[in-house]
């Protein structure tokens, strides 16, 4: 046994194992430095939590006032997964130097977004299932996925990996919510007049959402970054 298993005290007593850098297996192509510092990720997370918490509460209000049974039961699951998302965001906040009490901190990016959320919540009577679902599944959730993915891409891949991990799960589930909600809407909107109602509601809300700058209030610069 001439091969050394353990280094000795002098330079010529090295082990015989081949040298690797810490990032060689597998190759780590991530680079340090993201677009957001700790404080701005914390703000984003508070904004995300605000949107998820409100979506869950709004759908909670609607369960009783939508007549379609599969919509009631389907929304029940979306509510729970939204609550879990808000909960995960909340738990991330103390890790981002927001204080231990921050787990319940939600914050709208600006008044425009807060009033957009209230506009989503507005439809009330049983004849407005289309208007209700469009706000969440055609407008707000797709917007959330867009911003979540931007955040995942632009934040520091190593330093802010815990946020990325949370977002990965939330995005996967949100995509499933969107697929479900849009399938329901496709079924409900089975005439040209109803499809027009869906489009009109989506256009109106999308406009308000864009004007507010979206969930983080930074929609214009987020989109600019992509181009």
């Amino acid at each position, binding site marked *: 046994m001439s091969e050394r298993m353990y280094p000795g005290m002098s330079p010529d007593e090295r082990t015989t194992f081949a040298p690797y850098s810490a990032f060689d297996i597998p190759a780590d192509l991530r680079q340090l430095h993201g677009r957001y510092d700790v404080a701005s990720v914390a703000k984003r997370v508070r904004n995300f939590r605000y949107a998820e918490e409100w979506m869950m509460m709004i759908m*909670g209000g609607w369960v009783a006032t939508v007549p379609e049974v599969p919509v009631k*039961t389907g929304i*029940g699951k979306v509510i729970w997964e939204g609550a879990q998302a808000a909960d995960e965001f909340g738990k991330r906040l103390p890790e981002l130097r927001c204080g231990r009490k921050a787990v319940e901190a939600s914050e709208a990016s600006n008044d425009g977004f807060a009033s957009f959320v209230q506009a989503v919540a507005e439809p009330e009577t049983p004849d407005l299932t289309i208007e209700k679902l469009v706000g969440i599944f055609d407008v707000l959730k797709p917007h959330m996925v867009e911003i979540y993915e931007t955040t995942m891409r632009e934040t520091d891949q190593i330093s802010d990996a815990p946020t990325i991990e949370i977002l990965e799960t939330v995005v996967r589930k949100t995509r499933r919510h969107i697929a479900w909600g849009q399938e329901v809407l496709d079924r409900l909107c089975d005439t040209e007049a109803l499809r027009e109602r869906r489009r009109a509601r989506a256009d109106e809300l999308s406009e308000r959402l864009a004007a507010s700058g979206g969930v983080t209030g930074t929609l214009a610069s987020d989109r600019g970054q992509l181009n």
Partner: protein
Amino acid sequence: MKRFIEPNELARDSRFIRQDNAMATVLASMPDDVDAIVAAFEQFSPMIEESVRGTAAEELFEAYGPAFTLVVLNEPLDPDSAAATMRLILRMHGIFVGELQALEGAARSLWDFPDAPWEFKMNMARQCWDEGRHVQIFEKLLEHLGGHVGMFPESTFLFEAACSDDPAMRVAGVNRGLEGLACDVFRDMIRYAEKTGDEVMQQAVDYVLADEITHVRFGSEWVKEFTKGDPEHLKKTQDFRREVDKQFSFGGSRSDREDAAIPIAWEDRKEAGFSEEELKDLAAVSAEGPSKETLTQAAQILRDRFHAKRSGEGAPS
């Protein structure tokens, strides 16, 4: 969207038929007196007839008259008894709409109490998913037994009785009153399924019962939390739950009495956070209704009068 809705605002598709809650309320508070019960049912007879028209309950109405619910509610479900399947389906349908209302109650708690603690919202959100699954489970079980949604009328009595505007009372009413009743009913259904060897029903309801115990536990914990340091609020909340429990005992049908159709699920309730003292109290409150003998006599009189009237109508003048 406003906070707090009325029970008549619960949205339903065209399969559902709504029943007036007045009848369930009267039934829940009847005295142990044959004449009073007969008078109450005769007063409601046209309303009952109207609500069953075109539903599967019409058959039961024609057989037993306006008091058919007495027969359905007060006889223990036994696979060998007459019309056992129809009565089982009627109960299953009642559970199905009960689950719908439990889903709606839990979901409304998210919207009606926006400033509640986050943990409370998490519990209610979880309950939304669970109750949504229960609706799906009981729709499937209904079909499994040969029934379908909308075959019987739905009263929104459960939602009306349990959904208070005060958060402590809401959880006391929904999570302890309504969900506690669910524990009793489901334990009874599991027994029934074991008797008939229906493994599909046995296993599904067993899972549902596990969920319900969790929901009662939410209620037990949040009543404590919402009334912490306020003994008067706690007392009011307990009084409210007692009132709900009395209504949900349907005149002793759900009770600890020997003749009860639905016995109190003592062990399940203990696991869910009911104290021995509360359970004794529930046993006392639920036993207050008319005796089985009174109800049987009343049902007999009502059936005889109903058939006499029917044959009188049919006779040439």
